[in-house]
């Protein structure tokens, strides 16, 4: 009891202090040093009309590479910890008619929508992460609807790796051509798509990177679903 009161008092003191600090932060005011620069220069420097995408892939592309890696670690970690020699699906009943028919009918459209999201990342809200997650939803649908469905690991795992290798390679090509890691050589050196701003074929390497991220996120999340849904044979071991 004393312990609990002590904890509550402690939390209240820290909370008060934090609130005082938050009160002093000029959130929402014109303190956007770097932000303002982005807004003013985004078109000429990256060719993307979606400034958020330009910040994510170009200006802070290094962070994005890191975030992709974080997701990769999560999926690898799940796979490593749930690894057993033989694992299979144990679901007993098929999904209802609505679910199975819906999964069959909607599958291509969900996939298409996912691809649309990541290909248009430099034009509309969204990008590689939500696009990939949408694609993974399609596979989740299949897992829920059918008791025997399984993705082919022989294809999915190398594809995931390939997308990652592709991202690093794009960065390394930038290093070779422009002299900087993750340099947008398509836009800044070759100047492809300069007259095309606001259309699909513009914004340098953003569509390429977002496609790679989309594939990667899609395969990774599907892999996590697959690992979590399957169970080892003869229960437990």
């Amino acid at each position, binding site marked *: 009891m004393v312990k609990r009161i002590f904890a509550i008092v402690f939390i209240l003191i820290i909370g008060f202090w934090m609130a005082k*600090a938050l009160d002093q932060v000029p959130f929402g005011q014109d303190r956007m040093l*770097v932000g303002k620069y982005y807004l003013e220069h985004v078109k000429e420097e990256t060719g993307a009309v979606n400034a958020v995408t330009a910040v994510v892939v170009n200006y802070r592309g290094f*962070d994005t590479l*890191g975030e992709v890696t974080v997701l990769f670690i999560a999926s690898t*970690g799940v796979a490593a*910890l749930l*690894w057993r020699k033989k694992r299979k699906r144990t679901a007993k009943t098929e999904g209802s008619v609505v679910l199975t028919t819906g999964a069959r009918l909607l599958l291509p459209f969900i996939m298409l929508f996912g691809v649309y999201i990541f290909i248009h990342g430099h034009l509309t809200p969204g990008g590689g992460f939500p696009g990939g997650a949408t694609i993974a939803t399609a596979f989740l649908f299949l897992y829920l609807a059918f008791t025997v469905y399984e993705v082919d690991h022989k294809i999915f795992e*190398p594809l995931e790796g390939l997308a990652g290798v592709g991202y690093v390679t794009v960065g390394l090509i930038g290093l070779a051509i422009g002299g*900087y890691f993750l340099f947008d050589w398509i836009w800044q050196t070759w100047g492809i798509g300069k007259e095309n701003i606001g259309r699909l074929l513009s914004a340098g390497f953003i569509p390429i990177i977002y496609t790679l991220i989309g594939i990667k996120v899609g395969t990774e999340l599907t892999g996590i679903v697959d690992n979590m849904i399957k169970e080892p044979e003869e229960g437990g071991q």
Partner: protein
Amino acid sequence: MSQYASLLIALPLFGAFFIPILKRISKSAVMPFLVLVTLIQTGIAAWVFNEVYITGKPIIIMAGGFRPPIGINLYIGHFAALFVLVIAVTSLLMTIFSFKAVSVEPKDKYAMLFLLLMLGATGMISTGDIFNLFVFMEITAISAYALIAYNKTGEASEAALKYIVLGGIGSSFFLVGVALIYGSLGTLNMAHIAQLAHLVNPTVAKAGLALLIFGLAVEAEQFPLNAWAPDAYQEAPHPVTAMFSAFVVKASLYAMGRVIYILSAVEGWSSILRLLIILGTLTVIIGEMSALRQNNVKRMFAYSSIAQVGLIAVGLALGTESGVSASVFHMFNHAIVKALMFLAVGYVAVELGGTEINKFEGLGKRMPVTAFAITVGAISIIGIPLFNIFWSKMQLILAALNAQYTWMVALILGASLVEATYYIRLIHTIWFKGEGEKVKESSVLALVMLLLVALIIVIGIYPEPFWNVMQKAGSDIFNVAQYIKNVPLMGVSP
């Protein structure tokens, strides 16, 4: 040319992403591939070290070709160059050890997580952007969670879960701290933050800094947040334990030092230093006291490691250049010694099936080289002259005296005394108790251990050149004005 130092990040990433493809081609090629990648990484790190120390100028890598603070930059100065090399070399040695120590499947996943742990620590040490620091911290932490639970025993899962809970809380603290600083300055670049630090409201800066420190304290194993560490050290695969103690903790400690000193222009800054001194002191006391009571040698080493880390934090928080340099020296020495000791104790566990103290009876006769390595490491940690840690403890004491913290001398000497108690007990058990059959020791691992022993003794006898390097590395953290000058900030100002 210097931009090619970004390969330090690109190479381990490329390696980790390539392993799933390699596995399809040949499964047995995965572990040799791991050796190859760490070997190349060591080569690049050696080149970077050479470049930085010969020119005396840091390498600034600008990702995407955007100048900071618009883009993200890596800052490989004297400290980063030194520790990137330490990370690469330790990883290389631990990959060799992994052949022997890791038998649980799936090894390809182990190899990926191993590379990403190395990548995360490398990134934490070399980044010049505070949000990028968070990203690399996450990479390090999440691969660490998975690696701790890798053996898939109940205890390992429990240890990993403890770490996940604490690590998650720590990460969110850190993120809120970054948000506070970004909210008041509008920039994330560390040099830019340092330049504008005097503009931050003192309450905000102190709250932000405290949040950053508590966030990093989870991984830097400082007192109230280090409950996960002993379990994790004990249950993780042996090479991973060695990597933890040798560089993962050090990366977080460095990050702590860096964020503290870049905000040194803030009003009331010294109260934050005092906070860290209190945390560090408690870490030392509690670590040493707990180590004294352990019957499991690996766990005992873990507590001893925590105590040393406390000493490093205290040194960083002295607020003087000599304190920081002494801390860096201690980090370096401790990395070598603990890599050696966890390697040796892990090897004993592999050969004799456990790390309880009774397994070590007669070790001097059963595995003489390993026993010799543990002995040298133990003597060094206690702080006997002619071994490397003597010099760094000495420098810490001198720095504490200079900074008018006389009681800290008692802390360091007292800690050494407690260390002497439990390490001499261990040495006694190893050499003067029990008998046993001789076990054939792997010549490669014996070579690795003797190499590290030689390094310990060389630093112990000729500390001067090493101390010069450490002073440069220390002033890299301490001298913020120089740090700001080194980063080619473009003129975005309020």
